[in-house]
């Protein structure tokens, strides 16, 4: 408490000295203000759905607009299924790529390849969805002999392609931040390059890599347009539940597809905001955890232990 008081009085003193600081401070606080407004307004619009269905809004297994019945479980399941598939594909590819770029690739190529992968991160999701629909879905259909290629697997593949740049970017930074000293120590003892990577670089960067995976996961679960275009959009849990060749209806896709038709103030409208609320909370938690990991790590690095 004393700490906070000192912080406040310090702030007020500075405020008097330089009034421009008020404006700067307000700009900096805009993120908090908008996060708070977001929580407030989405909760307000979504309240009706939670009040009507109670816990069944989350665990109910029927999502049927015609019956005005909204149980989001199949949608949550769909989201998790698509994201899990994407993680399985993207994490090994992304992490190994980051290690390869930072530790193995000759210096002169590093920046070029890093920029290309960064460029890949800025391609809009609708373009990924478009390409997925046009090229990947037909291949999946042909390969597995199914009539339509817009299934969970296709969505996972598209999502994996989109998440890789995030994972490569963030874990690349973490790996590059492993101090030269550590690597020199290992190399001077006669460790091979691979031994150095395995026993010094990876253990040191481990939690940062984990954070990058979580950030990628957070992005992926909130991804809307690309997933929507290739997931098939059927609000049922696949049978069997691990069948990646059946269509699913992720949370985000449901919101985007149904918002246009939902009448303002209707139960459906409220249910869609309820889905938004679930997404907001899940991504908030994932991002906060990822941040905490990064912060703890940097503290350890600076020797505080």
């Amino acid at each position, binding site marked *: 408490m004393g700490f*906070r008081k000192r912080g406040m009085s310090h702030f007020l003193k500075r405020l008097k000295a330089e009034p421009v600081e008020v404006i700067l401070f307000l700009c*900096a606080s805009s993120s908090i203000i908008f996060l708070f407004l977001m929580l407030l307004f989405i909760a307000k619009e979504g309240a009706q759905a939670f009040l009507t269905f109670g816990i069944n809004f989350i665990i109910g297994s029927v999502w049927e607009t015609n019956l005005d019945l909204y149980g989001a479980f199949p949608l949550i399941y769909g989201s998790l299924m698509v994201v899990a598939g994407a993680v399985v594909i993207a994490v090994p590819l992304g992490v190994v790529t980051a290690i390869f770029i930072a530790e193995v690739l000759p210096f002169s190529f590093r920046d070029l390849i890093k920029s290309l992968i960064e460029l890949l991160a800025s391609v809009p999701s609708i373009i990924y969805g478009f390409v997925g629909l046009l090229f990947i879905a037909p291949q999946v259909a042909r390969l597995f002999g199914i009539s339509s290629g817009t299934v969970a697997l296709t969505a996972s593949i598209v999502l994996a392609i989109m998440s890789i740049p995030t994972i490569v970017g963030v874990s690349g930074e973490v790996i590059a931040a492993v101090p030269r000293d550590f690597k020199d120590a290992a190399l001077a003892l006669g460790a091979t390059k691979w031994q150095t990577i395995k026993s010094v670089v990876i253990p040191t960067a481990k939690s940062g890599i984990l954070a990058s995976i979580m950030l990628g996961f957070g992005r992926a679960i909130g991804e809307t347009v690309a997933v929507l275009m290739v997931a098939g959009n059927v609000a049922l849990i696949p049978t069997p539940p691990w069948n990646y060749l059946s269509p699913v209806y992720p949370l985000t896709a449901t919101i985007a597809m149904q*918002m246009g038709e939902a009448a303002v103030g209707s139960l459906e409208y409220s249910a869609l905001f309820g889905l938004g609320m679930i997404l907001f909370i899940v991504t908030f938690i994932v991002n906060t955890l990822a941040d905490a990991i990064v912060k703890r790590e940097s503290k350890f690095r600076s020797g505080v232990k």
Partner: protein
Amino acid sequence: MSKVREKVLFAFLGIPTAICLGVFFWLASVLLSGFGTIKWNLLTASVLNGGYLEMIVGSAYLLLGAAGIASPVGVLAAIYLVEYAPRGRLTRVIDQAINNLAGVPSIVIGLFGYTFFCRQLGLGISLAAGWFTLSLMMIPIVIRGTEEAVRMVPNAFKEAALALGASKWRTVRSITAPSAAPGIITSILLGIARVAGETAAILFTSCVLVTRGLPKSPFEPVMALAFNLFVKIVALGESPDKVFGIAFILFLMVISLAAAATAFRIYYRRRQPWLK
């Protein structure tokens, strides 16, 4: 012998990188194959005559307006965080909030934009509502980029000014901000590139499928490339090859913005010797 084994191992480690690059070139080649099919005169023809003009200009309006809001807010916020913010709980909370805002899914931003800007503030489905909604996605990008640029300005520069009796704000305006300007501009360009193809956030807030001419005020709806592409494929079920032109223009626009940002950064890092 162990050297040979290591070479083989590293070659295997290179496969995922090759796959990533392969995907990039494949994507580029797929979209650039549309280069020949584009009828260039359509770029400046009205949508009513089968062109793209309103979509392109509408997208540009959206981006410029959003950048107009996000740039000052983001830059000032970053200057506060680096130069002014006391170390304490409040600053930590602000810092965390920026990360969390950056992590909010764009569809949720869209929902919020609709209920807050369109309905609560009464902007309706309009260009202005789109500006505010998109600026929420740009602000964290601009803040983080600007913070980095401001941190890179050597302390010696600032101390030189302060030692001459300049006030803190004076130092920021005449020393820190100009030295960090290239980095700040890069981060704004990156912010624009990042939201240029954004669809989910403008889906319910600012776009319609067709407008008669360009919007005459910020309170009218607009057309946008990403929105049109989305609605044509998903809602109207048009075959993908029919909308290839839009996808191609959008891809080209985003990639050139992102490439411009990167090129700008590299150019200025070379010109400012104090940046390594």
